[in-house]
């Protein structure tokens, strides 16, 4: 309220009271009325404003998302001016906020459309929308209201792999394998004449009858690739200078491997020890192995939301999770640094019949020693320093 309003009202009332100044009373009514009515109008009208955002809440990296903002005045009182300011995260391309000014008549609505570019993985808040308005006389302060923020999930970058050298001991899968040990009786790829020593169960009696001599079926060897990806997002396990890039790289690796496995119609599960903004307790959530596109989207969404966290030890989680994994499951651990305890844990997993793969994302001073120790323990280690290193899996491999 302006500083001179109160003295004016006091003067008017004094004049009205002591000087029989009816005009002063009329003026007092006018000033107080202008003040009160203006304030009431704004408060009442602002309470009737409803805003809603419509947009695709999930997007892949680089995608352009159109956000439609619907503003509606449900009341009879018009709003002479309405300043809208929708906050946007810095990570998304473009200005940091969408802002505009409009007016709304009684029971009217309006739409605004703006777009953002999903330039960074994450769980980005769109909003909150700040709505400001004020009285038409400018005697009072501007009023401000906020509506809740919506969120946009930007999936991590997925690098399409041609093949990944992931060993598996799970027989009878859908993936072809070189070793005859994993011959799959359901995958007949030809016949040949019987040789002494062939199992009788392999004899194809129908073709033997038609050929007049014994014929045996040839089976294609195959494996089932049941994989469990463990993504370490404990910030301390990444080299501090490249922590942000390395954790992002780790997420990209996890997403790309998961995508490849699901693409191969295999099952994959995941454990991330990062912070999930949707989880109230921020505890790591394990996603049990499943197959299918929907499952992949769930994995990607988890990866999209995940953020690096401090003091979240990985080894106890692996210990806890390893016992629930089937024999022959491939355990892929993606981390920045691997200590002895992690290597021991992976060795234990290997001894229990699970395949352990260690992927070191980013750069670390201790990489050489880790690789030496892993070799001794016969644990396969990949070192991925940059996304370019992932090209090794973008070309077809001879092994699988």
């Amino acid at each position, binding site marked *: 309220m*302006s500083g001179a309003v109160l003295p*004016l009202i006091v003067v008017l009332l004094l004049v009205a009271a002591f000087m029989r100044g009816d005009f002063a009373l009329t003026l007092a009514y*006018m000033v107080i009325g202008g003040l009160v009515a203006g304030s009431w109008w704004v408060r009442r009208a602002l309470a009737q404003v409803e805003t809603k955002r419509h947009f695709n809440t999930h997007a892949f990296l680089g995608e352009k998302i159109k956000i439609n903002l619907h503003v509606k005045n449900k009341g009879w009182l018009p709003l002479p*001016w309405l300043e809208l300011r929708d906050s946007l995260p810095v990570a998304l391309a473009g200005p940091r906020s969408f802002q505009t*000014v*409009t007016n709304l008549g009684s029971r009217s609505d309006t739409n605004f459309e703006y777009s*953002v570019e999903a330039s960074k993985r994450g769980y980005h808040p769109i909003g909150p929308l700040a709505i400001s308005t004020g009285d038409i006389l400018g005697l009072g302060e501007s009023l401000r209201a906020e509506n809740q923020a919506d969120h946009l999930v930007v999936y991590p970058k997925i690098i399409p792999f041609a093949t990944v050298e992931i060993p598996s001991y799970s027989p009878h899968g859908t993936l072809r394998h070189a070793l005859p040990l994993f011959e799959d009786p359901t995958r007949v790829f030809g016949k040949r004449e019987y040789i002494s020593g062939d199992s009788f169960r392999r004899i194809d009696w129908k073709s033997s009858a038609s050929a007049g001599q014994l014929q045996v079926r040839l089976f294609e060897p195959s494996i089932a690739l049941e994989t469990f990806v463990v993504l370490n997002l404990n910030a301390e396990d990444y080299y501090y200078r490249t922590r942000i890039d390395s954790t992002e790289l780790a997420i990209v690796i996890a997403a790309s491997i998961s995508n490849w496995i699901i693409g191969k119609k295999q099952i994959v599960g995941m454990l991330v020890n990062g912070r999930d903004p949707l989880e109230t307790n921020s505890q790591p959530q394990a996603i049990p192995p499943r197959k299918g596109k929907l499952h992949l989207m769930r994995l990607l969404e988890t990866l999209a939301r995940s953020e690096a966290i401090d003091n979240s030890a990985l080894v106890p989680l692996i210990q806890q999770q390893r016992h629930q994994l089937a024999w022959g499951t491939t355990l892929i651990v993606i981390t920045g640094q691997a200590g002895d305890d992690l290597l021991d844990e992976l060795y234990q997993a290997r001894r229990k019949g699970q395949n352990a793969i260690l992927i070191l994302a980013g750069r670390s001073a201790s990489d050489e020693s880790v690789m030496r120790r892993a070799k001794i323990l016969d644990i396969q280690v990949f070192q991925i320093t940059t996304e370019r290193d992932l090209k090794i899996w973008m070309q077809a491999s001879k092994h699988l």
Partner: protein
Amino acid sequence: MNHSSNFNITGNQKTFRFISYTLVFLMMTCFAMTIGVLIRNAIPGWSSDIIAGIALFIVIDRLYTYKRTKNLIPFKREWAFTFGAQWMVIVVFTKTLLSFANGPDSLMSDISSFTRGNLANLFNLEFGVTLSLALLVWYVSGQFLKLLDEIGLDQEAALSKAATPVQKDILPAHQRLVNLTLQVGIGLVIMTVVTRVNLNAMFNQLDGSFTGLSRFSGAETGALFYFIFGFALFCLSRLISLQTRWNHQHIPIASDNLARQWVVYSVVFLLILIVVVGFLPSGDNFGLFSLIRILLDFLISIIFFVGQLVWFLLSLLLSIPFLLLGKNIPVYPPIPPAPTPPPLDPLADPTLLTNNQILMLIRSILLWGALLVIIGFSLARFIRQHGGFQATFRKLPIASWLFFVWQWLSKNADKTRRTLSSVIGDAWQRIISRTEGIRLFPRPGLLRLSALDPRRQIYFFYLAMIRRGNEQGVERKSSQTPSEYASTLTNAIPSVHEDIHSMTEAFVEARYSPHKINSKEANLVKAAWKRVRRAMQILRKPDKN
């Protein structure tokens, strides 16, 4: 980011300026009317309507000239000239109107007092109060306009101000405008209260009780209207300040009709407010219909007032020729013969004691001269400040006729001037050509070279060369140009042909160009002259031999 909206901030600037200036004018009119009522009530002998009219004139003048004068730096030369001229016109205008309001004889008497040097007689209380009021109105109007510019009427200034860091103790311009309006409003309310007090009756009662309190003085409507216009100004300035802020923050306005709707909402809001206030109980004077009646009465009174003012100004303009010729003014009753000044007592008046009529005459001339110069200068400045008046005047039919006469006169004057100037020019050339050949310097015998400026020093050396050349038999013909003579002299003394030519060129430049000649060039010519002189001396020696 894709904004499907447009920037339309400064498009309404002219409209905003017009409306806001109109509102300021109306508010100040209410202010002036209230003061008029107050003066009428307090001092019935004064010309209250004229005083209010002068205040209105000041407001109009301020509104009209503010845009041109706002950028003047205080206490600088231009500022002093502009406002000095403006106030000179205001003072003369005010005094003339106040004098004329008491009758043409009063005006003549004041003029007479002025011519006699009795300046003290001109400054009476009424004049002083009117000038104080004029100053107040001038200042308050200026403050309103300054704040409106700061709010955003002058977008450039407002945006540059918005870009500077905000000081915490400085209120936003809109708030300051509200404060100013309300503070003036408080003053107006107090004045209105005073107008309701029958001061004459109160003064007559020694105990000072308010027995002379009247129920309705007429100033109430002025106060009421002031606040209504003030509220309208708040609405408008609020929109302007918001638009300035949006412009500064680059916030686009999505709605095309925001300004139009704002005006509609403002009008409806104020109407509803007035209607509701009209229905509220406030005694027996004000109710909705009585309020409307009073407001209409006030509007009609303003129209009458302005009409009277115009009539008064016209009558003043028409009567000036009659007054100057000493004849009776047709619109006024015959002027009684001006009271002859009482016979001056020679003992009381020291000027008569000395009987120095010349001194009186000089004083009168000085006063009149000073008055005419100041008024003429002020009027010229004033008219220059009011460029629009000139444009409007030019559109009038009488102006085209006057312009035609002026053109004819100026054409003839131009012709005469050209003829005269050519005659004078020819005569001057003749004189110069003679002096060039004979004597450029009036007293050669007393000539001191160091006392001459560089240009004249070059003249001197060149003329010396001609003189010496003549003595050597290389005479300069009157038809010869300097370069032709230089060629002749070079043929006679080829050894210094460069010096001769440089001296000639220096002389031509010094004589015919407006370039500034410095002493360095004069020294060069001096050195050249020494060489030429030596060569001439050598040339002379064989002749002697």
